[in-house]
């Protein structure tokens, strides 16, 4: 290679700073711009040796990349040889387009570099935007696609509740008074509580019992469950709290004929 030691040194120094070029055009453009030259055949000839020197040092790259650099290097060599040799009058116009293409190609690449820089600047500002992915309004989120609900005025709700309240309230007391808790219901409640918490006190079970009848029912229910070993009870002192917990015979089927205990 014809490169001077100085040229080789500076190129290597630069390479360590800017480790990779995006291909031969990138390198070529860099070499030309570094010497503050315009893109022309003259400037291409001027940087040919440096370019070839760089190609010679492409050792770690893949063959594919080396081929790309070599291809451009060959075109440069042709160009340079034309300049070095005595010039015959050019008659054949088809001879020249190849190096000219390289000039045009390089100019286009320079444009691309400029466009890239502008895009990069845009990115540097960090001004991204984020697409709307929100939950959006309800009309969109609705579960069922086949039947969508009509929208209503709030006054519809008001009308519904006023209509109800103008009719019903007087009957509420009657409903409550007639409510009787059966032993079966009570055992279900106790079992649910024992199953849920592992242990409950009798006081908790009867916390909601408003009448003596309800408390009596609860006590009977406890007796039934104990007798069938579905629950165990423990009372540590006279009139003390009674704790209820799961018993060994905890079997739902055992409850089936439970009401027979109280048939009489």
């Amino acid at each position, binding site marked *: 290679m014809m490169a001077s030691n100085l040229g080789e040194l500076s190129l290597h120094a630069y390479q360590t700073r800017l480790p990779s070029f995006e291909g031969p055009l990138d390198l070529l453009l860099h070499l030309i711009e570094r010497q503050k030259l315009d893109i022309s055949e003259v400037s291409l000839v001027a940087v040919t040796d440096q370019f070839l020197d760089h190609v010679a040092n492409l050792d770690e790259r893949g063959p594919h990349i080396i081929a790309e650099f070599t291809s451009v290097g060959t075109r440069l060599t042709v160009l340079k040889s034309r300049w070095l040799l005595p010039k015959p009058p050019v008659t054949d116009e088809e001879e020249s387009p190849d190096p000219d293409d390289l000039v045009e190609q390089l100019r286009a690449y320079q444009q691309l570099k400029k466009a890239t820089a502008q895009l990069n600047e845009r990115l540097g500002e960090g001004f991204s935007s984020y697409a709307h992915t929100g939950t959006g309004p309800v009309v969109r989120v609705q579960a069922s696609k086949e039947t969508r609900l009509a929208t209503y005025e709030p006054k519809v709700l008001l009308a*519904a509740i006023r209509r*109800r309240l103008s009719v019903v309230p007087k009957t509420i007391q009657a409903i*409550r008074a007639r409510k009787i808790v059966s032993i079966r219901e009570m055992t279900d409640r106790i079992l649910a509580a024992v199953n849920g918490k592992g242990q409950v006190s009798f006081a908790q079970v009867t916390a909601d019992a408003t009448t003596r009848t309800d408390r009596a029912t609860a006590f009977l229910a406890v007796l039934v469950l104990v007798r069938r070993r579905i629950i165990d009870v423990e009372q540590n002192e006279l009139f003390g709290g009674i704790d209820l917990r799961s018993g060994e015979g905890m079997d739902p089927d055992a409850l089936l004929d439970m009401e027979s205990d109280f048939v009489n």
Partner: protein
Amino acid sequence: MPVDYTTEETGALIEAILLVSTEPPTIDEIAVGTEISVKEIEEGLAWLEQQTDRGWLIQRHGRRLSLVTHPRYADRVRMFLGLDREAKLSSASLETLALVAYQQPVTRSEIEAVRGVDSSGVLATLHARGMIEPVARLATVGNPIQYGTTAIFLSHFGLQSLDDLPPIGIINGKDGHEMLAAAQASAMATETADEA
């Protein structure tokens, strides 16, 4: 991080946040997430809520905020989304929904105490429609489920929050809200374990 946003800019930021959040955030979450003080977020939000030229409203569901289309444009939005074929709520559903809306949180027994009829089917329907949801369990035996209304409910009725529900007013010389509360209290006393 100190912020140099104007109130208007903070409002616009909130708008941006609501646009991209997948779940409706609270004011506190916005403040923490953007490192802006709660006070500034609240001021920005107040400014935002005053804007009348938007196509949407800020809906407050509890402490959560979300953007929903403005009721003024509901008909065109529905038209655009092809929602003209709509199912209507039955009068039983409407009545039950009204009870949940006005008295939430409320259990099935409390609802039945007022309506006087079994309401399990209606509640299931309303739940499936996304209008109501379980919000808690009562601390009595059986731990019955308490229902409340959802953000979907608010949108359907064009409400910004539950505070926007029209007051029940006076019925037969009695205050409607008090009547409901009394009915609820009496039902509470006979609460059964059937929700367990």
